[in-house]
């Protein structure tokens, strides 16, 4: 969490964010959510593949953040972008080219 901006930064280090990885990923997020953040920068640079279960964890995370919650995704691979497009969730999450751009978008 950046003290100055109040924006939580989370880097995901699961190369495959699939149904097998989802329980651990969900717990990792939960561990970071001791204070419910309203703005999160989610770095998916190291995620090569995501399925609907992995995506569901992100959707749950957004719901948990409340009605004012916003998530900016950085480093979305073509595979991640494709899933967001197929599911029409590309408008639910901001997609940014860099962490700095994500902070600007969430400011």
């Amino acid at each position, binding site marked *: 969490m950046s003290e100055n901006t109040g924006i939580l930064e989370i880097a995901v280090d699961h190369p495959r964010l*699939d149904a*097998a990885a989802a329980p651990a990923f969900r717990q990792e997020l939960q561990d970071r959510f001791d204070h419910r953040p309203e703005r999160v920068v989610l770095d998916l640079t190291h995620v090569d*593949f995501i*399925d609907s279960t992995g995506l569901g964890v992100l959707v749950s995370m957004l719901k948990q953040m409340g009605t004012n919650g916003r998530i900016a995704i950085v480093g979305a691979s073509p595979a991640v972008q*494709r899933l967001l497009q197929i*599911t029409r969730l590309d408008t639910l999450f901001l997609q940014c080219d860099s962490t700095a751009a994500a902070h600007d978008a969430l400011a």
Partner: protein
Amino acid sequence: MMPLPDLPAEISVPARLIEVRRLAEHLRKVCRASGVSEMTAFDCELALVEAANNVAEHGHAGLAEGEMTLSVQIGEGRLRMELRDSGKPVPEGQFLAPATASRDAPRGRGIGIIRSCLDTVDYIREDGINRLIMIKRLD
């Protein structure tokens, strides 16, 4: 159908979520060996993973053991995947029903994703075996 040297015609794995990755790996190898484009290969992998997740999570829920078997064939301008398992039958019309997951629902997108990624999806229950036949046209 084009032969795929050095790759088995099909692969069987235990019907568990962690094993879905081995099916996906096999598909990626076939796609690479056959020169399938990255985005087409990704669509097929995503559809396969969603289908195999369903087999592991629902078809084999409560069953002590079981396998799922994937065969992949490429030819005649299409990629054909067949996923077989001996788990519970898929509810009738499951692959035909319109996607119903609301935008902020954490689950329920799998079938819609499978249909979005592929050109044809056919499900057959035959002699206690589920057969899901998934076809993607190759451009």
